[in-house]
């Protein structure tokens, strides 16, 4: 069994292959990500950070190459198994947060547990614990659209953690936060690392990639990781 949690071997993702508008957001990327590591994928807009994050998190499949999660090649797994890997291994914090408006903070956090074999009461208890840990207990019944940007960010993190994932994947998590809130967010990631979780952050925010809490930075450009970063 690999000591690396996630390994990418020559992973390429191509859209519109063979057509004039063919694009390669991720091109021949190889990368090892260890357990309990905070890794930042850095690069300008369009460099392929989000696509690489989606590949790592099994949201899309590579056109070629291998992706090993805990030593298991997931690239060619059938959809159902891939969903299982995604659900059991990863928690996502999206750039746009992608919370569901019209329902409460508690329901948003519980949402990943709905299709699982876990009772409603247990699911609610777990969600309330996370909401409490992230300082949102007083907001649990609020609809998400009534929250501030920082509060919404924490709801998204709580939802990402509800399945007790081994890794958190965050795409531009500070895009809508001021410096103070960005600092708080980094502290949360630091806490998660302390719990043994791997954190992969795609960002071009210097507050994140220059933070002393980061273990490693991989710089991306034109779908590739620059030499020496992988």
């Amino acid at each position, binding site marked *: 069994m690999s000591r690396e949690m996630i390994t990418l071997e020559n992973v390429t993702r191509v859209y519109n292959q063979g057509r004039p508008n063919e694009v390669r957001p991720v091109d021949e990327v190889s990368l090892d990500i260890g357990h309990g590591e905070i890794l930042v994928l850095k690069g300008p807009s369009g460099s392929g950070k989000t*696509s690489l994050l*989606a590949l790592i998190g099994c949201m899309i499949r590579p056109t070629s190459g291998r992706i090993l999660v805990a030593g298991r090649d997931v690239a060619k797994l059938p959809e*159902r198994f891939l*969903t299982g890997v995604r659900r059991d291994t990863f928690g996502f914090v999206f750039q746009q947060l*992608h919370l569901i408006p019209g329902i409460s903070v508690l329901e948003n956090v519980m949402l990943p547990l709905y299709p699982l*074999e876990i009772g*409603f009461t247990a699911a609610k208890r777990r969600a309330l614990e996370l909401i409490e840990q992230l300082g949102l207990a007083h907001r649990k019944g609020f609809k998400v659209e009534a929250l501030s940007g920082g509060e919404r960010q924490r709801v998204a993190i709580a939802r990402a953690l509800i399945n007790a994932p081994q890794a958190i994947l965050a795409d531009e998590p500070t895009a809508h936060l001021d410096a103070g809130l960005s600092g708080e967010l980094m502290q949360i990631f630091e806490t998660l690392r302390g719990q043994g979780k791997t954190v992969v952050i795609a960002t071009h925010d210097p507050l994140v990639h220059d933070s002393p809490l980061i273990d490693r930075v991989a710089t991306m450009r034109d779908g590739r990781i620059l030499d020496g970063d992988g």
Partner: protein
Amino acid sequence: MGSYHLGRHLKILEFALSSMLRRRTKNLGLVLVFAALVFLLSSIVFLTGALRTEALATLEASPQLLVQRAMAGRHALIPLDYGELIARLPGVGSVTPRYWGYYYDIYTGANYTLLGIGDQGLESPGSTPLRLVEGSFIMPGQRRVCLIGEGVARVRGTRIGGMVSLRDARGWMQEYEVIGLFASPSRLLTNDLILLPEADLKAHFGMPDDRATDLMVEVYNPHEVDNISRKILERLPDARPISHAEIQRTYETLFNWRGGLLLAMFLGAMAAFMILAWDKATGLSADERREIGILKAIGWETSDILELKLWEGAALALVAFLAGVTAGYAHVQRFGSELLMPVLEGWSTLFPAIDLAPQLDPYALGVLFSLTVVPYIVATVVPSWKAAITDPDRVMRAS
């Protein structure tokens, strides 16, 4: 484990209902359109069912075999000596002439059926399935009296002891004293039928003494009805034997929603299809696609999303179906099918007003369910399935 498994479905159901509430305006609109469609279709089903039941109720006590005479393809009075010939056929129990005719009442604009009651009274074979609720029957030899149904009494505003005036074949007004009111399993009968002494009826219509309207034939063995019909035709080529079963089949065909009003059903189904096509063509809104992408990204499987959409579609369709069927039933039961009766123009002008009792035909309701609820659920699930099998990343980026 079992309760956990059930809990999983309940949680998805709860989220489905919550999602529907979030889109309450759109869903309410869909429910209203859907329910209106089901209302129309179920009204047709209930109305035709009621008409069929009414018609079949009139047949309950009708003779096994009815013999009419046809002349130039039309119903003509039948000579009584035809009855003597038929009575001699092996297997024939009895032959009873029947005297009846239609009467158009210019004052009420209704068409009544006048039926002559002979000395055998109402208990004779093949007489109508009527039940006296007030007054007395027509006694042998009694003249210038009549029995009317409760519906006729109501329309004409008369009771026992009142008079019913009818213009006879010579154009003279004849008055008949109402001596009894009857009820019937069929409201068609109580709204349409007037019973007169046979002699009065023959005089009223100016019928020759040697003719009747038709002949009721009792056959010993019901399995021999067709055989006796054939023999009658061999001996009397201008006779038209009609068996009970044939009349029943005709009524079934005439009033069955699959027959007479199939066109209306078809148009309704087309309307349903257009709504569904619209719903399908518009597909999912950007919000719905995005939501499916989010659910996939946070670990929902395609089957979980299909279950969610199935619950949503089923809940909406069932609510609309039940509302539509209930409204349809009330329309026929409480409001006399006011919206549909103009379609049946002939009936409404020829007959007095009829209060129909709708019939709950499980088969018809099942077909209605299949024509509306099932296609709607399929149309709801298909675009969701298309979105759910796409990579969640793509679904979210597309929105």
